[in-house]
């Protein structure tokens, strides 16, 4: 079972990029984009700012598929666009490629049954505007929603008939992977993993395992999510994962969120699609693919005490499960902790969570944790939940590929000091994250 897995394509679709090239430019220039939410009036919510993506899914699907975009939730749109960017970046020709490309000799025609698809996804909130419009047709005299009036016995225009027939299909979390597999004709193992901030990393790990066990040669993998909607903003606020920046219209939100810094005002969300193409190494070589980095180790573990306002307990100040996941990944990579040259942590900017993560890094890396370069993304694009670790992994792969550190790296021992971008000899990069529900995952990427 010695099948090595490499990253051969990426679609880092986030508030600062829509391709491998633009992402690398943004990272080296220290670009950030966290802006007032512009898709609806978010002024009633604690955090009306977010990292937002500008892209129209209709521009990214085959013409014949445009009609199907009507049943895509925002999360699905982000996954579909990011997957297309990643497939193109890897030089893949799929059933989603235009005919003229399929006829050319540039690119690699995938083998459908040997190509899998694992996507980290979140719970998709039903569109509140659509729901609101429908439920007001089914209220009783006191103005309360009434299920009897919601039923359809009263005729064709009764309550629930105000929702479109395919309403449910828009909100099933597996629709991200379903649309991606249909567009590209991917018939291998396919899964949808619900792991919030750990979702994409758990998906990438599963893809690597699928390839290692010879159930596929390559997978489209990663995650996508957008909670930039009323229910999403409410829930993540209730989860204690959003800064309270209400009525502070003059604030610079990129200065409000400061990972690992005690003066951080809290976290801010973003929307993103973070998709990758991962591939068995000899398969990639034989088709002459450019590989960014090798996935040399991974691990995952569960914290029993994630800080959630539903358990009546005080969480420990270190995330022991995260240090265990990191240690497992480093061991599997066959290296020592001090050989990690840079870390992409979650760095959510919420101090209780950052302290747990920093202590987990200290437990796993020892003294090296204080001085190793940290590359934080939450303060650049927001916490993009199920997409986040996909974008992090893309950043780590680019760093190894370019042998270069992005601008504004920092360290645990001096979190207020930001380095300019610079050439660096990078052998191994660690990516680690923990989720709302305490799922922890870590990945070691290595230079090829």
């Amino acid at each position: 079972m010695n099948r090595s897995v490499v990253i051969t394509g990426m679609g880092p679709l986030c508030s600062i990029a829509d391709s491998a090239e633009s992402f690398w430019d943004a990272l080296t220039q220290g670009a950030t984009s966290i802006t007032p939410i512009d898709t609806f009036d978010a002024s009633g919510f604690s955090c009306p700012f977010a990292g937002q993506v500008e892209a129209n899914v209709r521009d990214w699907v085959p013409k014949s598929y445009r009609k199907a975009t009507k049943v895509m939730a925002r999360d699905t749109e982000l996954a579909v666009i990011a997957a297309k960017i990643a497939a193109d970046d890897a030089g893949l020709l799929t059933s989603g490629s235009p005919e003229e490309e399929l006829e050319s000799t540039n690119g690699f025609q995938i083998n459908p049954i040997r190509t899998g698809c694992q996507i980290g996804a979140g719970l998709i909130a039903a569109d509140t505007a659509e729901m609101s419009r429908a439920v007001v047709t089914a209220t009783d005299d006191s103005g309360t929603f009434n299920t009897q009036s919601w039923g359809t016995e009263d005729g064709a225009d009764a309550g629930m008939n105000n929702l479109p027939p395919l309403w449910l299909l828009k909100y099933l979390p597996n629709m991200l992977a379903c649309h991606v597999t249909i567009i590209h004709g991917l018939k291998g193992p396919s899964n949808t993993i619900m792991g919030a901030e750990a979702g994409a990393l758990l998906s990438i790990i599963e893809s690597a395992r699928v390839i290692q066990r010879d159930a596929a040669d390559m997978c489209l993998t990663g995650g996508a999510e957008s909670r930039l909607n009323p229910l999403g903003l409410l829930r993540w606020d209730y989860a204690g994962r959003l800064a309270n920046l209400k009525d502070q219209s003059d604030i610079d939100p990129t200065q409000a969120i400061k990972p690992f810094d005690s003066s951080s005002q809290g976290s801010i969300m973003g929307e993103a699609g973070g998709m990758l193409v991962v591939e068995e190494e000899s398969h990639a070589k034989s088709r002459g693919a450019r590989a960014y980095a090798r996935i040399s180790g991974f691990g995952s573990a569960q914290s029993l005490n994630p800080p959630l306002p539903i358990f009546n307990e005080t969480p420990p100040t270190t995330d022991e499960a995260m240090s265990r996941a990191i240690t497992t990944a480093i061991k599997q990579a066959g290296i020592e902790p001090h050989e990690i040259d840079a870390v992409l942590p979650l760095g959510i900017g919420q101090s209780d969570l950052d302290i747990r993560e920093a202590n987990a890094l200290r437990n796993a890396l020892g003294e090296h944790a204080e001085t190793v370069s940290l590359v934080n993304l939450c303060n650049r694009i927001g916490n993009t939940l199920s997409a986040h670790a996909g974008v992090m992994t893309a950043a780590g792969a680019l760093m190894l590929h370019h042998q270069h550190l992005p601008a504004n790296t920092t360290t645990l021992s001096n979190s207020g000091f930001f380095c300019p971008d610079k050439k660096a000899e990078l052998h191994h990069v660690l990516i680690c994250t923990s989720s709302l529900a305490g799922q922890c995952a870590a990945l070691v990427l290595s230079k090829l």
Partner: protein
Amino acid sequence: MPNTTINLPDEQRVVVTGSGWVTPLGSDINSVWERLLNAESAVAPITHFDASTFATNFAAEVSDFNLSDFFDDPKGTHDTAGRSTQFALAACHNAFKQSGLDTNPIDPTRIGVYLGAGEGVLDYEPYMAANVAAWDHDARAFNPKTWADVAYQGMTPAPELEQEPQLTALHLAKRFNAQGPNLNCMTACAASTQAIGEAAELIRQGDADIMIAGGAHSMIHTLGITGFIRLTAMSTRRDDPTTASRPFDVSRNGFVMGEGAGIVILESLASAKARGANILAEVSGFGSTADAYRITDIHPDGQGGAGAMQMALDQAGINPADLDDNGRPLVHWINAHGTSTQENDKTESNAVRSVFKDNAMKVPFSSVKSMLGHLIQAAGAVEFITCLKAIETGVIPPTANLKEVDPVCGLDHIPGEARDCNPIGGVTTTLSNSFGFGGQNDCVCLTKYTG
């Protein structure tokens, strides 16, 4: 036989050492099994909410369920757990007990969780109040500011966060001290079969010694039922709910919603032997494919489902063309996905025929959804446990309400009455199929453990 699971070293062989479920026919493994063999239906008018005016007003509900029947101290940590999470806690409690892990714990970092648990039930009253208040009748538009104001007043953190599907796996991890890999997948109706299959692979690849695997779900609530009514996927046989779920029958007209949980303990053979655990069966094969066809339809040939079955058989080293010395195919039962929709039952039958070809008419084929309804994300795990019971007892449960087999579904059906296979050598190998909306197909092969 090279490359088959049963020839692997003990560390890479995966066996089942515990099982538990909460179903519409009860929570005790053996008594539910008896009721299934007797073709009893759990389908009745919905009581969870007033569905009297709904086109489908019936379902298979879990009744008389109390977490305190399973735990001495159900409150505290699980105080806020949603309905399906409570089902999972109860099912896992019984699975743990059967596996002997309750009295003989092992290294918690080597125990993981892989569920196909569904989302929790909306906190309807305050959620609907916000939606109603936010509609500006004069402007005929939605007002997000009003929604926020009303939502912050009425909606509270615990019920909102408990709806996140991975919270079920967190509750299990806390309760049963499982600190290894923890995942939750949502591939609709295929989810818990996929969770069991991937959990077995995690053990095979050394990421854990023991996995708590399965699923839990309840969609018997206003918008859950609404969604499937709008898709016209459910039976509307309001005058005769108990026979509404009739897989493979010529008069079938949709599925019937169920709810519940199924949890199994998967373990490396090495770990099970070291603990002296009782082994229920071996997970000998797993297959997973995508149709990559359409969002709303299954591929008419059932090629995705066939691919998943073939992949599971390949891993188990079983050739579907082979017959044993008594002329029986090597698979003794296919636990069908068998939802009672026109489309699924037809394409699944095509898939079985394309895999087993000349032997297809000799492979017993039945669907317990005829009695339990469709437990959506929990369906695969509960059906996996029926495969364990078939292997243990040598008896195959029937498809209830199957009076006239649809000619397009022609296979070796088991209509109405259970089939005792003990006179012909019992049941040693089963397949369990689960196919999800959007074309996600999973199949697990279970084999009697003989050493």
